[in-house]
């Protein structure tokens, strides 16, 4: 596939591996956080760790919108489908996420709720047009990559005068979450993780542009390389980060220049600004309350806001005790540090945010590194007992 296969070429991988081995100083470690779940997935799926030296470590960040969606919001979506009888249209990622009482969209559909998986908001609009007597609610999740799709849908619904379409908006923002990770040491020293730099998100950056990260890199002094999605992109970005660290620089560099520009997609940004406003704060599952980190639908478009159209009851959601997701999402702990990993908490029976989506840290470890992680946990347990 064009512009995909070339960036998975084994000879180029070897070229980059050689360069990384040469330039990573043996007398120190390098800890880079890949913010986004897609990068976590790519690193595991291609075995990138095998091609970089042992002193270069990846720390997995909280950039998985499914993982960080508060359980309460999922319960709200289920209530819309079950109690209000709407057609709930959703991306596939949400289908198996368990809400309270282990209910998920999949089980709710099995019990008779009209929940339909779609690839695009365009399909959700089509469902609304085809079912004029039914209310259709689209479950809007995702970072800035996915938010424009919801904005376009709302604008289209307004243009067409669709009376039965609304969006349940759970879109979140990337830079505030990065700031939250960087500020954590100030809030609680136990939350400090030694981070030498960030692999910046690929496709969020396509929309918001490289400039979106400059203020936070300037303020916190951590290098960032906006990294493409393919394994060679990740490797080249690691090389660029190693160089920044070695040279004492802290800049925003753009490895993914083939689709990321300085300003990003201005039209998409304008649409998001028109259709959405920022919530004062939003509770991220595992991270707690993060200010100015999520969008709500602007008052001018209130008729397309599911939260305005439907009375959704107040809910309390309680996370499992012993769940280490808050620390894991910030990169302070790793899955092996969680008692529940692989035992009570598995992809089939996820108890926390990190196991809930296939690119959450724990889900990735479970799928790709289960045996060695459990072995490490067993060893740690034996050592603690001695």
């Amino acid at each position: 596939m064009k512009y995909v296969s070339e960036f998975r070429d084994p000879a180029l991988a070897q070229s980059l591996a050689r360069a990384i081995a040469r330039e990573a100083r043996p007398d120190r470690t390098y800890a880079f956080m890949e913010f986004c779940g897609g990068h976590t997935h790519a690193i595991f799926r291609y075995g990138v760790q095998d091609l970089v030296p042992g002193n270069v470590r990846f720390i997995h960040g909280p950039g998985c919108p499914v993982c960080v969606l508060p359980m309460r919001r999922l319960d709200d979506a289920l209530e819309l489908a079950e109690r209000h009888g709407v057609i709930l249209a959703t991306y596939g990622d949400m289908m198996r996420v368990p809400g309270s009482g282990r209910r998920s969209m999949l089980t709710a559909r099995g019990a008779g709720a009209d929940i339909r998986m779609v690839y695009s908001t365009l399909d959700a609009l089509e469902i609304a047009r085809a079912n004029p007597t039914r209310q259709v609610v689209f479950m809007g999740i995702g970072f800035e990559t996915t938010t424009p799709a919801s904005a376009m849908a709302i604008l289209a619904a307004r243009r067409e005068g669709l009376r039965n379409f609304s969006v349940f908006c759970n879109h979140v923002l990337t830079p505030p979450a990065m700031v939250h990770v960087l500020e954590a040491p100030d809030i609680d020293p136990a939350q400090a993780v030694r981070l030498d730099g960030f692999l910046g998100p690929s496709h969020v950056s396509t929309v918001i542009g490289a400039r979106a990260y400059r203020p936070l890199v300037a303020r916190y002094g951590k290098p960032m390389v906006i990294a493409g999605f393919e394994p060679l992109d990740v490797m080249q970005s690691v090389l660029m980060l190693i160089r920044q660290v070695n040279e004492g620089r802290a800049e925003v560099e753009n490895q993914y220049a083939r689709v990321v520009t300085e300003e990003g997609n201005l039209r998409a940004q304008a649409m998001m600004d028109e259709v959405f406003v920022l919530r004062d704060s939003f509770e991220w599952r595992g991270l707690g309350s993060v200010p100015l980190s999520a969008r709500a639908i602007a008052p001018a478009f209130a008729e397309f806001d599911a939260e305005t159209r439907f009375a959704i009851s107040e809910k309390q959601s309680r996370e499992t005790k012993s769940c280490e997701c808050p620390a894991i999402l910030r990169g302070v702990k790793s899955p092996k540090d969680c008692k529940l990993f692989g035992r009570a908490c598995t992809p089939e029976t996820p108890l926390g945010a990190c196991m809930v989506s296939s690119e959450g840290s724990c889900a990735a470890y479970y799928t790709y590194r289960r045996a060695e992680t459990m072995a490490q946990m067993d060893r740690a347990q034996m050592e603690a007992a001695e």
Partner: protein
Amino acid sequence: MSTILRPGACVEMAHGGGGLATTRLIREIFARHFANPLLDQGHDAARLDPLPPGRLVMSTDAHVVSPLEFPGGDIGSLAVHGTVNDVAMAGAWPVALAAAFIIEEGFPLADLDRIAASMGAAARAAGVPIATGDTKVVERGHGDGVFITTTGVGVVPEGVNMAPAHIAPGMAILVSGPLGDHGVAILSRRQGLEFGTAIQSDSAALHRMVAQMVAQVPGIAVLRDPTRGGLSATLNELAEAAGVTMTLEEAALPVRPEVAGACEMLGLDPLHIANEGKLVCICPPEEAEALLAIMRAHPEGAGAVRVGTVGERAAPGTPGLLRMQTLIGGMRVVDWLAGEPLPRIC
């Protein structure tokens, strides 16, 4: 022109009642399309003698595919191929099939007729008669149009003896052709995921190809068809059953460009996607070339390639493992997927 196939006619509860309506349904749709000497005997239980010499095997499969008709096949042809292949994977020559239908009240008779015709054609092409069957009708809302269960019996020739226990370190892992065609063909017809593609389901009967393989290479360790769960599920099962590590080469995996494109678009992995006309063969390495040549001489095996190798036995008490050397030279574990693969945005 048959009496029950009036335009717009649908299946009614009476058709499952055992009376005249049932007889008409059987005669005018099923018997007409499945006609063969065994079925035409008209007995409740078909007599399958004389059987060729060898050991008897039996397999059954329930088919609930949605949509019922898809590019490259339908639930009918799928039901025939699926069970023929299950029997063939034991090394057996399929002798006959039984077919049981559960039909939802209100299901259009014209659709049923089309499915039965396809099933009859598939059975005839495979040379495996549908020897006996049954029909029931359930109330509207209690079924997904039609469910078909097929059971097959076959005979394993003398000298053919395959089992996961025969898998040994060093053996070659072969597949008979490109992966993921069926799953993608089904997805391309599912509402909300429509995309234009020429991908057809690979649904096909493999027993003739298998017969030649087992006749010429008695040392094959095991044959399996990677259906639900894809190549990953099949090899994980075998690795676990045999207690070995298996290593795949990602660069060697055959996948059609359109299938790869659809998977990239939806965030799916071809390793987890169902195939309905492919087999996995694990054999001594010195036999790999011969087996690939046999497969490639058949249309169903045109794209046969070697995709991996069986590694060492797992330590006692630890499970077998499936892993893959990735395109860039790293190593990853290929795990069972929890549930059906769903398209994702992340």
